[in-house]
């Protein structure tokens, strides 16, 4: 392994080990339950088992991965593999599961190493900076090492996939992305960019397009390679379940359409802003209009906290609306990619696909912000103009993860770790990004910095929230403040990035 990456890994591991005693969310129990299911139930039962409410709802590769882990787990403590041991939570189990997350992060490290090694010597400094920003990302620390998930590994596969594509190994890249989809289907959000890019750059050859023989533009051999290998991946993953006739059940587990527009805590997207406007209008109306419709009890104010949201003033949002909006913005981002299928454009459209699904999607988790941040990181150092949207995105995105960790012991870690990350990379990226040819809009940069500084009083206010007795009746307000402010930042970065993508270069 490259020394710098090895050092970074060792340093981050020795810190993450200290987080073993930290609070674990329900996701810890979710994954323990999956270990138990895959280990002590036959494969035919995996997607039917429902003793725990945390049923298996990831695609089969992830289930296979859990099965593999369980082969090790049985030497640590067999009791954690018993499905009936709900909420089993002893030290050995915690240490095993936490260690498995840290070990799985090696995938990410090797992916980053692959990326660094691919670039010429004179670009190494930039590549290292980007790699470190991902490796030390507060997002992975909060979600994986405290809250508990395996995102770093999955994003490692994603990075491997597009670095292979950068290398020209389109087939490998495509197959890896298919594998990734079979690990966690949330990456479907990024698939339009993959589809279009592979189609345009690998399966078609526009140069040999002729009107009288349009099929000449199709690289038949490549199509067969790619098609057959993706089908092979899908068969390995889903084959056993198709054979057992469980595909409908599996798909139902993967795509539960009965959830609400916003997640329990509003992910900072357009709908968070929409809900916030709705709430504000509601409160204004209730005070100034004597309309009985608005005179309901306070309880309606907290509806945003439970799954299904309906709006009081603004029109309700239907799944179709969110789907159409997402599709529209994703398609928009694909147009330049179709015209000039360069690698940078591919990564840009990946980022924009992530943005579109995060900002407009139905029932988005705040954790999905990583889908935007990770691809964006690879563009951040293209030139200085990218830094403003990049920091708007990362700062707002990482801070929007804070409510995931609500215990006081870990609170200071999340604040300080994130602040350190921002402080380091703001300085490092600022020194590394080349000055672009085009003039920057300095005013906007200043506004962005002011906006980011606004997080300091905001977080202080939220931390002291419980002490302000006047606000006791407005419990939801605390979360709403964060998600609204973050959503402004993320939407701002979306606009900035889209402008750079569509109207410059």
């Amino acid at each position: 392994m490259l020394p710098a990456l090895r050092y970074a890994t060792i340093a981050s591991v020795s810190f993450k080990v200290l987080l073993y005693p930290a609070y674990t969310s329900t996701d810890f129990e979710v994954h323990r339950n999956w270990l138990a299911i895959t280990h002590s139930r036959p494969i035919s039962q995996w997607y039917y088992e429902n003793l725990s409410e945390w049923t298996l709802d990831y695609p089969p590769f992830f289930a296979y991965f859990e099965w593999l882990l369980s082969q090790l787990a049985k030497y640590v403590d067999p009791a954690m593999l018993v499905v009936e041991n709900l909420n089993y939570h002893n030290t050995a189990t915690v240490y095993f599961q936490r260690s498995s997350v840290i070990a799985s992060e090696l995938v990410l490290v090797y992916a980053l190493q692959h990326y660094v090694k691919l670039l010429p010597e004179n670009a190494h400094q930039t590549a290292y900076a980007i790699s470190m920003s991902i490796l030390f990302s507060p997002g992975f620390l909060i979600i994986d090492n405290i809250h508990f998930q395996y995102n770093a590994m999955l994003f490692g596969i994603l990075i491997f996939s597009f670095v292979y594509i950068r290398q020209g190994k389109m087939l490998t890249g495509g197959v890896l992305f298919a594998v990734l989809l079979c690990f966690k289907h949330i990456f479907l959000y990024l698939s339009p960019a993959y589809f279009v890019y592979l189609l345009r750059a690998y399966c078609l050859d526009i140069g040999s397009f002729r009107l009288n023989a349009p099929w000449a533009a199709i690289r038949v051999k490549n199509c067969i390679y790619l098609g057959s290998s993706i089908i092979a991946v899908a068969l390995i993953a889903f084959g056993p379940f198709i054979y057992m006739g469980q595909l409908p059940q599996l798909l139902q587990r993967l795509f539960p359409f009965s959830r609400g527009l916003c997640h329990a805590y509003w992910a900072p997207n357009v709908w968070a802003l929409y809900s916030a406007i709705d709430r504000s209008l509601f409160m204004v109306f209730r005070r100034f209009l004597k309309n009985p419709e608005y005179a309901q009890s306070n309880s309606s104010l907290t509806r945003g906290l439970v799954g299904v949201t309906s709006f009081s003033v603004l029109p309700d949002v239907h799944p179709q609306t969110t789907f159409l909006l997402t599709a529209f913005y994703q398609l928009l981002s694909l147009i330049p990619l179709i015209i000039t299928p360069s690698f940078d454009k591919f990564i840009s459209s990946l980022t924009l696909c992530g943005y579109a699904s995060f900002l407009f999607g139905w029932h988005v988790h705040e954790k999905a912000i990583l889908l935007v941040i990770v691809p964006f990181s690879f563009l951040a150092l293209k030139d200085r103009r990218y830094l403003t949207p990049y920091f708007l995105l990362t700062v707002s995105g990482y801070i929007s993860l804070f409510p995931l960790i609500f215990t006081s012991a870990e609170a200071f870690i999340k604040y300080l770790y994130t602040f350190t990350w921002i402080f380091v990379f703001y300085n490092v990226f600022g020194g590394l990004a080349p000055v672009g040819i085009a003039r920057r809009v300095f005013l906007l940069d200043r506004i962005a910095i002011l906006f980011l500084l606004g997080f300091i009083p905001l977080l202080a206010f939220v931390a002291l929230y419980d002490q302000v007795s006047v606000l006791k009746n407005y419990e939801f307000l605390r979360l709403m403040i964060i998600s609204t402010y973050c959503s402004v930042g993320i939407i701002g970065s979306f606009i900035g990035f889209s402008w750079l993508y569509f109207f410059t270069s």
Partner: protein
Amino acid sequence: MAESKLAKSREVSTKKNSSAATSPSDHSSTKAVNSDLSTEPDNTPLGVFLGTFKAARTQWVARQVIIMISLLFRLGVGLGPYSGKSVFPMYGDFEAQRHWMEITYHLPISQWYWYDLQYWGLDYPPATAYHSWVLGWLGSIINSTWFQLDSSRGCEDPNLISYMRMTVIVSDLAVYIPAVSMFIRWKMKSNKLSPFHHSISTAAILLQPSLILIDHGHFQYNSVMLGLALLGFTNILKDKLVIGSLFFVLALAFKQMALYYALPVFAYLLGICIFPRLNLPRFVSLAVSVLIALVGLLAPIALSSGFTLEGIYTQSLQVLIRIFPFARGLWEDKVANFWCAVNTFVKLKTLFSPDYLQRLSLIATLISVLPAFLLILFYPRKKALIWGVSASAWGFFLFSFQVHEKSVLLPLMPVTLQLVGEMDVNIQSYIYWINNVAMFSLFPLLKRDGLVMQYFAIFFLWNWLMSSSKRLPKFILGKLIVVTSYLAIVVLHILEFTIAPPAKYPDLWVVANTMLSFGCFFLFALWNNYILYQTCITKP
């Protein structure tokens, strides 16, 4: 024998590398330092990380980042358990500190050193009591149940734990970290060292494993006392004598253990009042300000039961009785000091009366610190002060009465400070070595607290960051001692985790630990005195 050879190697290397030892005004040596810096490889992991910030513009970023990272590791250790967690009925040091906040906040001052002494009666000097009062007051604003009189005993509310952990971090930030930065800045300026070395030294000191684990894992406020003492040393070194001695008095008033340092500091201050010529105004101003500070710190407690002579007498006497618990015996737990080591073979406590042992330990301590005292008194040199302070602290740790294993932090702090701008690999390696041995000597305590994983993580991190394993003494006997003791530590750790001690000697591993640590400490103390001697007698 071994020591003289170690010292010879030091002598040779100082000749080769005279940079650190010569005065800053010597121009040619300054150049030598700088060329040394540019050629010194920075391929240690820490050097690689700091390489990112090599540009002069970003040097300050590097130092801030080091402070933030050292705080992060403190917070990380703080997630783990602490001493006496859920151990009914007495709990541990955490509960002691919490209890003091409770009693100082709720009781009148006159009660502070008298209230229910059986349950963690206050046994630190007044500044700790005031510190506790402030923290108890702040904490009670946040949640009044945390420090409710009597009913809060053994309170383990997670938010209380976070609050207590934060108070240690904030005390660190307010006292220890500024003190370390100030010392390093002074040393850098007087030795003309590069900002890069500034950062490396900051990391080496702030990530010192023993202090992190005791303060933020086990739970204590040692860094406050150490920081105050260090502020004292630094100000004295910067010739701000009155301020320096006031800080030192504060350190003494925070924890009486700062007495370990007192003799050399006193000797230095006295020495510069006498040599090269008698400076009576300086002496008088120092004496008066120290006395005023001491009286001022004690006054609120002494006067708490009225302005009568009797009240003052009883209160002050009680404070002294509580602070110096001569009734408690020569030592408590297994400690890597002389008495405990001898006791393994000769049962001291059955052979001699406690009074006799007390006198014996007093005499032994005085003999052990006498060289440092005299050397500093007659050669009050700036570069000798810190070595003198550590020599005296080793003497107290190894020979004095009622020593805790945690007290090794006291000699360790000035020793670790010597890493700042130290170019001699031999000296570096002994300092890393003694830090590791000290860490090892704390292992039984940390194991009891449930901090085994934190112990290994921080232990590893510090040594790895500094590449201490690559810095072995060049001198063969020194190398032999260091390598053998490292091997013994590894073997003992393996034994501890794989083989249960024989039923006849249930404490076998702990005893082996203290014996090994005592041997290393003793050798190091001798070497420390030798270095002090060298520093004092070489012509400036």
